[in-house]
């Protein structure tokens, strides 16, 4: 991990999207066991994975992980907590009028 420059990794991944009544979910799993750390950015390559209604799609793709620099990682660890309201759920969006 470098202090200033970002490292970019190409990683094989499996994308699973379920668009069913029983379950609506979407997950990315890195097949080589890569893990993401605070401040890293992940981009799944290719066109959007679009599951039609009732469908579960599981696809092998490539993900680009842009590693955060040491400074960014530190910064994200120090400041991430301030965004804690993201974790809370209020039934409505934050827009004051819809």
């Amino acid at each position, binding site marked *: 991990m470098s202090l200033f420059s970002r490292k970019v990794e190409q990683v094989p991944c499996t994308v699973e999207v379920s668009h069913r009544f029983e379950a609506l979910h979407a997950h990315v799993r890195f097949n080589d066991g890569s893990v993401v750390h605070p401040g890293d950015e992940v981009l799944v390559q290719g066109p959007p994975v679009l599951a039609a209604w009732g469908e579960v799609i599981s696809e092998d793709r490539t993900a680009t992980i842009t590693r955060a620099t040491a400074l960014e990682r530190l910064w994200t660890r120090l400041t991430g907590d301030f965004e804690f309201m993201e974790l*809370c759920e209020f039934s409505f969006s934050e827009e004051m009028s819809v």
Partner: protein
Amino acid sequence: MNMHATTHEELAAEIGEQFDTDAMAQESTLLNPRFYTTDFDELDRIDVTPVRAEWDKLIGQMKSDPNKGHFKKNEDWDTVDWDNMDPKLKREFIDFLVSSCTAEFSGCVLYKEMKRRGNNPDICELFNYMARDEARHAGFINDALREAGVAVNLGFLTKAKKYTYFRPKFIYYATYLSEKIGYARYITIYRHLEQHPEKRFHPIFKWFKEWCNDEFSHGEAFALLMRTDPKLTESFVNKLWIRFFLTAVFSTMYVRDHARPAFHEALGVDIDWYDQEVFRKTGEIAKQVFPMELDIDHPRWMPNLKRMERAFRKMEAAEKQGGIGGKLAKLGAMSSAALAFAAIYTIPVKKSTPPASVRLEPAY
């Protein structure tokens, strides 16, 4: 968990026609969850031994999956007259469905990640069941959205996602409160509609009871997790954090509920009454693990909530106004919101001692 649903305009520009796989869909909304990491080693170090008996019981209950058959549409799901719904109510109700769906969805993403990254079998099992429940709820709400002609787009996976970071304790406090407040919100509406069935403008409210029981047991799991380490709720600094979380969550809920007047009017719910009721229930429940309760009957409580709500309205107006005048007005509104928050935060709390046994059952 709160997430930002992208506005419909942004979406239309972004995905255009390519997603619409459902002929009924008149609009689509992109789920845009946030992605988090946490200290997974710390999660692995959790030892549930001190609460083992209660833990096993709760996990056993989750494993038996009592609500498995509940989230199905049956004859109770009556037809909704979307076309004749008051447009303002429809907008607010769809905002409710989309926000709830994205919240469940992002809970699912977070829990699944915790399950996948963890090596502690107790923790992995718990997060696995919770991810299952959240995906199920999300699917159920999504179906209601489809009926309303709103298609949910999961195309976010192929967009760049930045991972932010929360310490585990922040996840415990925030998700514990979210789950318990969710329970209190749903059960209060459910009980209200039992008394006033004519106000039930959509069948989804009939499912609120079992739904909120899931929320309740997720909250129980976080309560047990917090009990494994007494420092989390007993140290001086952590008590200040808990107080801060309670204040922030309650006041945000107050502001957001008041921004949805048509929704509450249609249900026949007075928002001030409803919010106080939800705060009361949540506060009472949270005493199972937090050593305090906010004094929501204190003379400074309600006036400052109202002040904060006015400040948020002014902020919105100032943003629309734009220019230097708008910026100044926004700054003024922000400081007035901050003062209101401080006035609430400094209300002396009602101290309490959590009971020896942490577990609760849904009682409202």
